[in-house]
């Protein structure tokens, strides 16, 4: 039994110890090397919001608690740890993690997990205590968001797809990669009014495929709200030079397809100040000074 004076002495000592651990948590192998991997590749399905397989991987304590099938880390033995087994299966295996074809761990990341488990899967082992871990990849410039995360608006997106009969397709698995507006399935359903109705999600759309739709110059004013638009296809629409003025605010627009439209040189002049525009197609228009003759360009 601890006598009172002793205990009093112990209190500052404990406080000091806690301070040391807390300070060190920053420098542990777990915090520096393991947690970031789990955070990046697993926590979307194994964290606070979702607990697939009743497993959370967003803290050491959760990780050690394991999931539906019990513990997932067998301290000292990676090959017997569910955590390690799941990420080293064949990617086509049903049990492969991350599930659903999400980006898999790199061989370096797998190695980090393996070394950490082999060294005892400790929360406190200092960074320097585990040798041979592959160097951290140079911090990649974070992938620039092309648009705000569309996920919070998914219900609205689905409603608009249904109402307007257009498709709003995620460009990639990154929710900040924006949406593609697709109309090729039934272009005639997409008109100026439809474009106006897309206003609530306009900032999410990075690519608008409007070829052969019923869009007119009047409808182009709505494109001003498509603030993150990078690619716009207006092939074979009734758009003319007069309408192109509405595109002036599209500071991110990189490619513009005006094939078989009513634009002429005056319209092209209006595009001069678009800062990001790199490619413009004006085949089969009245624009002069470009090879519009297919036979000529085929030599």
């Amino acid at each position, binding site marked *: 039994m601890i006598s009172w004076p002793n205990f009093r002495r112990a209190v500052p000592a404990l406080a000091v110890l806690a301070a040391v651990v807390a300070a060190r948590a920053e420098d542990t192998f777990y915090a520096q090397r393991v947690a970031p991997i789990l955070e990046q590749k697993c926590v979307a399905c194994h964290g606070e919001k979702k607990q697939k397989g009743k497993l959370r991987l967003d803290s050491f304590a959760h990780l050690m608690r394991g999931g539906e099938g019990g513990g997932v880390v067998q301290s000292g033995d990676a090959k017997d740890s569910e955590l390690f087994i799941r990420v080293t299966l064949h990617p*086509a295996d049903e049990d492969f993690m991350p599930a659903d074809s999400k980006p898999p761990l790199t061989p370096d990341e797998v190695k980090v997990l393996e070394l950490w488990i082999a060294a005892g899967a400790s929360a406190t082992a200092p960074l320097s205590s585990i040798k041979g871990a592959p160097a951290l990849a140079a911090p990649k410039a974070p992938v620039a968001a092309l648009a705000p995360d569309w996920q919070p608006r998914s219900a609205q997106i689905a409603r608009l797809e249904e109402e307007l009969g257009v498709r709003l397709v995620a460009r990639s698995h990154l929710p900040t990669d924006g949406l593609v507006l697709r109309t090729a399935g039934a272009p005639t359903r997409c008109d100026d009014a439809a474009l106006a109705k897309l206003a609530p999600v306009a900032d999410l759309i990075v690519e608008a495929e409007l070829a052969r739709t019923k869009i007119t110059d009047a409808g182009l004013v709505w494109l001003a709200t498509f603030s993150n638009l990078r690619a716009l296809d207006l092939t074979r629409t009734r758009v003319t030079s007069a309408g192109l003025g509405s595109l002036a605010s599209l500071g991110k627009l990189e490619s513009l397809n005006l094939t078989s439209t009513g634009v002429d040189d005056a319209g092209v002049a209006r595009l001069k100040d678009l800062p990001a525009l790199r490619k413009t197609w004006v085949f089969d228009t009245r624009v002069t000074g470009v090879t519009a003759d297919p036979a000529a360009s085929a030599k």
Partner: protein
Amino acid sequence: MNFLPTAAQTRRAFLGRVSQGVGAVALASLLGKTSPPLHGAAARGVVDPLPLPQRAKRVIWLTMAGGPSQFETFDPKPKLAQLHGEAMPESLTRGQQLAQLQGQRLVCHAPQFPFAKFGKNQTEICSLFPHIGSVVDDICLIRSMTTDAINHDPAHMFMNTGSQIAGRPSMGAWVNYGLGSEAENLPGFVVMVSTGPGRSPQPIATRQWSSGFLPSRFQGVQLHGRGDAVHYLANPGHVSRAQQRTDVTAINALNRQHDAFVHDPEIATRIAQYELAFQLQASVPELTDLRGEDARTLALYGCAPGDGSFAANCLLARRLAERGVRFIQLYHRDWDHHSQLREEMPLKAQETDRASAALITDLKQRGMLDDTLVVWTGEFGRTPMSQQTKGTAGRDHHNKSMSLWLAGGGVQRGLVYGATDEFGYAATENICTVHDLHATMLHLLGIRHDAFTVKFQGLDAKLTGVEGGRVIQGILG
């Protein structure tokens, strides 16, 4: 991905995974599922969202059926010319597979036409193909392709499905299954076979565009370049479009009721196909009406509307691509030059050279080449040895070397990739397989080929097979 219903599978799970599109919409509404409906023939893909950035949105695959000789197209071999008539080195040929040259003396056969230099990089290709030469800076030429098969049918199956044995889904079916189809009134996978004045070639079998073990709504639909694009498409004189609509609606309502009891993807297919056929009655005449194409465009391709030529089909391929068709495969036959190589090759060149180049030029000028992957390939290559058993000299089938090209959709422009030995007998540098080609195509479409599987007969079946393919990184732009 497992879409085949099993006793244990709930209808909800089955729906979620399989019967996308029309059937799914109706049933989904019965079940109170809220995912937005798709109209007409459009269907959502199972790979959603895509794991990789999508460089190509669609594919136009030009199949040169019969096996074009690389020595008279894209692989210059001056050494072979010097050795014309001499025995092939046994070190190359001993114990190797042969098709029709079994038991024959194996003799070098010189390239029959001169090569010329084209484009910025002075790429050498056969002088019979000056138009392709004129777009060589836009294409990626692979000289180191190989295949497993050495006879037409298995080689076509392999190129189309990744397996020599019939029964697997063809790539067009895989791609539509994975990405979904965009067009509401056209199939997602269209096949056209051109006719020319050439010799009577091998037939092209519909199993080459089969959906295999995928639901049959993903199979290729053949449109004809001459006569009615789709046979028996027009209504009989006394049936109006409105009447037809009522009939199709009623039949599909019955089919949906049935589908609610037995979950069979083939019922969803049937519903979708009834609807599609109805849509085709309106969309096909619009598709094939080339009056909107100006004289310059017709001259670019070198075709007359409705002449059934490869050139006309190339133009239709562009029109299909514009209308949201995901996978378009054109066949042009009669490249099987066992004999009369010298006599017949110029004819093949004439039929395909201008048209192939026109397709590239036309897609490019319309801003479509960046996101359309074009592939020009036979099912195998031909031997550097001559074949003399069937008349004037030709070349036999060969699987250790062949040339093909790709363009657009995220592949490098103006690249020559890989090489063969000085006889052109075997690929020696950057050797590619058909699985690699498929893996690369899927990669460009935004799909990871190794994770794109369907459970079938106890295997996770893939387009890229069990041997595995690898993405040809060296050609990616």
